[in-house]
């Protein structure tokens, strides 16, 4: 019996010929990513346990991002603590202000994500990096502490669900619409404890960046990881950013999947996940039959959709248009490089002329941190990944998840709007 890409990576890192779903293994970890919220407790734990060591400082990347630039004294203290700790352990990969950005956007962009490797981080959206064919999963602070000290971590080998997406995406439909459609289909626990492997001609046609939007949201279906086999585009993306040598790992033809689900991309529509779950998707044709949903805020950013392609899509729609009076549009390029690129391309001119504001890279309002918090009764259309109660502010505010195109179109109309009418 063959193995899936996930099983192969885990077997290799556990020093085994093969592994089976359900098996408990101890795997070597190639990369640990640390951010402000979950790493500080991990450092405390290690110190308290008398285990304050780092297995390999070159395999640690630190990206303060959640409350960065520091939103208050407490968050400033957290980052200051990490800064001191990183210095003590000679961790070079520290993305401080000036190089900062949202962790899951920085990691692949700066060449830290290598196909076939194992990555853990104290952040649930760590599944993003599966877009490059790595086994990458989110863990808590204790796991981060354990990995920092030992370079290894325990895992139960997950079963894999295969998602085959074929066909050409219609105009105005993007990778965000694919993943929101899948989550609507299988539910927020539809892939609980499982690896989600995405394949098919549609996935091949997507850029590496667009693929990241899909794997990013694997956790929103309860998945342990999302993964896409590396192809030529992946190799080109990685080789242009890293000198690291790696083995290309793909699933065997006779690999075992617990389930295979097929989607025809040509039949997909723009979709919006309504409050308060990412699975609560409504297609544009369903939305058109409803009463208007006015939006107080339109938010473009995050590890899901804050990359340069996302900003370009939104700019194309916003060009020559104005954000509706009464609606606030906030653009948050996910990393410093993306910020610079967007400025160079003139996208900031388009955004500001439309009446949007541009923020420095941060996780910011996506998790209700800062830089765009919602008041009671407010509604926000956002390109982020989670719309739980109170996610972006007041527990009485409402969050609608959508593609950057829908966010831009909705900003113009001041209500949830179909982006297709703005596209040539």
């Amino acid at each position, binding site marked *: 019996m063959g193995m899936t890409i996930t099983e192969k990576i885990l077997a290799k890192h556990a020093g085994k010929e093969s592994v089976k779903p359900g098996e408990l293994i101890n795997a070597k970890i190639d990369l640990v990513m640390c951010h402000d919220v*979950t790493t500080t407790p991990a450092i405390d734990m290690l110190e308290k*346990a008398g285990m304050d060591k780092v297995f390999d400082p070159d395999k640690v990347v630190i990206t303060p991002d959640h409350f960065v630039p520091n939103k208050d004294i407490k968050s400033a203290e957290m980052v200051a603590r990490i800064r001191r700790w990183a210095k003590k352990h000679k961790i070079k990969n520290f993305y401080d202000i000036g190089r900062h950005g949202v962790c899951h956007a920085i990691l692949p962009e700066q060449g830290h994500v290598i196909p076939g490797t194992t990555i853990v981080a104290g952040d649930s959206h760590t599944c993003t990096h599966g877009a490059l064919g790595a086994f990458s999963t989110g863990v808590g602070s204790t796991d981060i502490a354990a990995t920092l000290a030992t370079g290894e971590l*325990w895992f139960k080998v997950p079963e894999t669900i295969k998602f085959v997406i074929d066909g050409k995406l219609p105009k105005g439909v993007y990778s965000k619409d694919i993943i929101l459609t899948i989550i609507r289909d299988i539910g927020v626990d539809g892939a609980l404890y499982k690896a989600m492997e995405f394949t098919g001609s549609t996935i091949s046609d997507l850029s590496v960046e667009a693929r990241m939007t899909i794997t990013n949201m694997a956790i929103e279906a309860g998945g342990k990881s999302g993964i896409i086999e590396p192809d030529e585009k992946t190799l080109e993306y990685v080789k242009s950013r890293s000198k690291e040598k790696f083995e290309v790992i793909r699933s065997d033809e006779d690999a075992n999947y617990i389930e295979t689900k097929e989607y025809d991309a040509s039949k997909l529509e723009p979709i919006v996940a309504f409050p308060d779950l990412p699975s609560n998707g409504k297609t544009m044709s369903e939305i058109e039959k409803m009463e208007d949903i006015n939006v107080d805020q339109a938010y473009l950013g995050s590890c899901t959709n804050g990359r340069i392609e996302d900003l370009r899509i939104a700019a194309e729609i916003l060009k020559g248009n104005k954000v509706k009076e009464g609606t606030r549009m906030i653009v948050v390029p996910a990393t410093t490089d993306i910020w610079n690129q967007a400025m160079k391309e003139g996208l900031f001119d388009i955004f500001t002329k439309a009446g949007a504001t541009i923020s420095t890279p941060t996780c910011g309002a996506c998790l209700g941190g800062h830089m765009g918090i919602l008041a009671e009764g407010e509604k926000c259309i956002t390109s982020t990944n989670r719309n739980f109660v109170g996610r972006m502010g007041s527990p009485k505010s409402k969050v609608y998840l959508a593609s950057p195109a829908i966010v831009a179109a909705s900003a113009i109309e001041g209500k949830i709007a179909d982006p297709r009418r703005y596209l040539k």
Partner: protein
Amino acid sequence: MKLTGKAHVYKKDDINTDEIIPARYLTSDKEEELAKHAMEDLDTEFVKKVEKGDFIVAKENFGCGSSREHAIWALRGSGVKAVIANSFARIFYRNAINNGFLAIECKDIADKVGNNDELEIDLKKGKILNITKDESYSFVPLSEFALKLIGSKGLLNYIKENKGIVADNV
């Protein structure tokens, strides 16, 4: 090992980490600080009602969302000894085991247990006794590995004791 406490029942799926401990409080990782806001965005009365040793009872996919271990710390700090639910989100479950905190999978528990019912959890037998209703329910026994971590009071202690994370024989 037997634990006795009062049940706080939430007949709800997908109770997420934003509800258990909202991100606005994540600038602290102190249990007593986080405990003041446990379950705040789901039930503002929870912290007033909860007593040391109590249990939370819920439905599917408890703890979905963020990887914040603060969710475990907030609950533990508030006095909660165990969460009993149909199923748990993966990272929450992992964080629970790693902290030696009890996350117990028990089918349809939220439909069987009433609010404030007195429960007794027998970890060894895999049984929950509802003292108030004089009923008993079986739960999925914790794995040997999970029990070891709980016995060691968490993953880091376990590593110290065993000089490694997972023994080959687990």
